[in-house]
């Protein structure tokens, strides 16, 4: 097969192109599936007694009388430049979502900073001491943690740490007026819950990824060269397990952005998830669409990064013949 001069570069560019294409398709789905919803926003807001003239005037004011394709193009063009349009409530969507997004991102970032290194470390430990106590203990407890729904984990955490022990507040309603320490203190419970939820998944997958590499002949060869078991795991197995580990980490980071709706609601944390619930309640279509687009971007973006990491970690691609 013929290779271009920079196979990695062309593959990475290809992946980025594919990512953008998926994002475009997702944006189509987001925009037009909302279009398909029965009833119009204007008649819903104005009530059943509204005159057709009043509905038409409202639709004109919100720009809803334009053809859908034109509105889609305008929306997409705006989104590409960071302008997600006006909410039906009259404020720019970015003003509504901006601070919320910041909150979600900081919750996700703190959780990820703790969870990712910890999960990889525990996964390595399980693989190294396969079948021993630590492996069995972690395997069982992570399985239990995965099997339980996240809101249940949230309520258990809340009951023990907030209600019984009263160490932390059960409500995580942070405000800008609070200093960082105060904010962090209020975020402990949601962080802890998210940790329990994503840690289990990542630990199990890291362990599985390493163990599947541990079955390779070159791992046996390393043992036959007298390499200590710990080094076998770190030096022989781990470098070859980076791809699968990156993809499970990416999945969980994406979850931290888009999947935290339930956790945010349980702890009344003012994040994007909460904002979306409010928007759904108020039929504020531009905000809903913006939230969906943000979530989709997070998913596609993280998976894209994971893809690129697994391409770059493959020596066959990194060092072509």
């Amino acid at each position, binding site marked *: *097969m013929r290779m271009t001069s920079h196979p990695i570069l062309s593959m990475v560019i290809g992946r980025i192109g594919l990512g953008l294409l998926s994002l475009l398709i997702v944006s189509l789905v987001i925009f037009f599936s909302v279009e398909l919803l029965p009833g119009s926003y204007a008649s819903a807001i104005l009530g059943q007694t509204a005159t057709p003239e009043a509905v038409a005037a409202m639709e004109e004011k919100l720009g809803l009388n334009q053809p859908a394709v034109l509105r889609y193009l305008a929306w997409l063009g705006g989104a590409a430049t960071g302008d997600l349009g006006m909410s039906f409530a009259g404020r720019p969507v970015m003003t509504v979502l901006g601070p919320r997004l910041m909150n979600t991102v900081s919750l996700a970032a703190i959780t990820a900073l703790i969870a990712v290194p910890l999960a990889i470390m525990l996964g390595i430990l399980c693989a190294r001491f396969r079948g021993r106590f630590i492996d069995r203990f972690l395997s069982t407890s992570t399985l239990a943690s995965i099997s339980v729904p996240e809101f249940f984990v949230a309520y258990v955490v809340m009951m023990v740490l907030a209600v019984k022990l009263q160490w932390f507040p059960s409500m995580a309603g942070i405000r800008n007026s609070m200093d960082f320490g105060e904010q962090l203190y209020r975020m402990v419970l949601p962080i802890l819950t998210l940790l329990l939820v994503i840690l289990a998944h990542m630990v199990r997958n890291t362990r599985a990824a390493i163990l599947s590499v541990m079955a390779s002949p070159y791992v046996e*060869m390393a043992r*036959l*060269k*007298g390499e200590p078991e710990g080094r076998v795991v770190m030096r022989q197995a781990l470098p*070859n397990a980076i791809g699968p580990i990156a993809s499970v980490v990416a999945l969980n980071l994406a979850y931290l952005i888009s999947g935290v709706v339930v956790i945010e609601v349980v702890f009344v944390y003012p994040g994007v998830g909460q904002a979306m619930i409010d928007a759904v309640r108020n039929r504020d279509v531009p905000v809903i669409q913006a939230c969906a687009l943000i979530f989709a971007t997070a998913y596609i973006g993280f998976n894209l990064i994971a893809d690129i990491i697994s391409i770059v970690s493959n*020596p*066959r691609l990194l*060092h072509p*013949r």
Partner: protein
Amino acid sequence: MTVTAEAAPVLEVRDLRIDAKSNDRWSQIVKGVSFAIRPGEVLGLVGESGAGKSTIGLAALGYLRPGARASGGTVRLLGTELLAIPEEERRPLRGTKVAYVAQSAQAAFNPAHRLMDQITMVAVDRGGLTRAVAEKRAVDLFAALQLPDPQSFGSRYPHQVSGGQLQRAMVAMAMICNPALIVFDEPTTALDVTTQVEVLISIRKVIEDFGVAAIYITHDLAVVAQIAHRVAVLRYGEVVEEAPIAEIMDNPQHPYTKSLWAVHEMPAEPSGAHGAKGQPLLSVETLSAHYQDFQVLKDIELAIGRGETVALVGESGSGKSTLGRVITGLKEPSQGRIVFDGKPLPEKVRQRSLELLRRIQIIYQSADTALNPRQTVRKIVGRPLTLYQGLRGAAREARVAELLRMVELDETHADRLPGQLSGGQKQRVAIARALAAGPDLIICDEITSALDKVVQAEVLRMLIGLQDRLGVSYLFITHDIEVVRAIADRVVVMQHGGIVEQGGKEEVFSPPHAPYTGKLLASVPDMAVGWLDRIMAARAV
């Protein structure tokens, strides 16, 4: 080279017994094996698959694969009883005092690290060498092993060098700490025959230059005759015969050893015994094929007569199997055509009639993957009977039984699943399945490569007998010259996707040869001591 008889042995194995666990039951796979290796001596461990060769080889490093345990005996390496000390004390000996060379270097090198890092690792970690000294030594070894560009060879990744080079790099890795003993576990089995010669020469040179003792594990008697001083023949985990190489080659004592020797000298069928008269059954005309931009087949021209066996010979990557796929319609040619029984053959398998599909059958190398593991033999063999001939019920049952007898299996095998059969039996089932269609042409793609020599000889004999009875033609794809000698009427030699020579078997196998054919034939080791010496001597001139 001199082997000092009075020196203390490097390795002494006494009454070694190893159990392996299968289906929750322990069974003995090595049953009281004893041998000793003196400094500078090479012991050949010969036997068929499952004889316990690798298990014994690994035990020499004090290593047992997961699911195996030593149940008796001693393994004494340089005076240290390996089975009596804990793993933490055995481990430091590996790589420094005793080293291992695996069958597939491609699999045994870690794809994520440069060769130099992997080769010098043991020396730097535990051999007491600095990195610079270890690298210097590695470069010297690369040069001794005749690797290209020794200075920069180590900076490459495993996938950046060829299979033969990688195998030699593994020898360098084993030699880096100057161990007293190296275990070579089928180090040339995965290589093409022309590459095998190069690796054998390197191994011989290293063993002689450094005076290292070795265990050389192989199923290939011709190879062991070139390398070993003494040979131990293993069967079912027991040594049936042990003797100096010259003695055992000339005068094998044990009946099993004799049978191994006998299959190596299979009587060659005289060519032209079958068919080849009148209009050919199949002719391939100026055929080319591509995988994307890469041309795998170039201007192939060949013909197969009725009841004739045409052997397609060449190294891996020469396009043999692709040609088989094009004839079956699984791969489209980019140019040229195939005429079958006087009519052009549609290119794609979808365009061919059921009748055409019936008349051309294929059998693959690995019966393990070619047979559905969840179907009984009855279902596997009966399916083409129903599909092509509409047989059902008792008629089908009778025909299945008949086919099983034709491939020398018992009717009771009909109820078995492939997993309950041996490798040879599975390949017989695959042959019965092909025969069930009643084909005119069977494409045999390396069908005996995965089989032991004794089984291989039986299968070949059976195929020849079937051809006499049924008049079927074979296109026999193989890299094994022995097999070609045994079965072919005509021979087609392929290299880089093109045909370099074709003709009757005697014609191709006797000089003058096309240059590549000559090289190929010269690379096949003789079943005699001294063949490699002659090649090395010829090269030194």
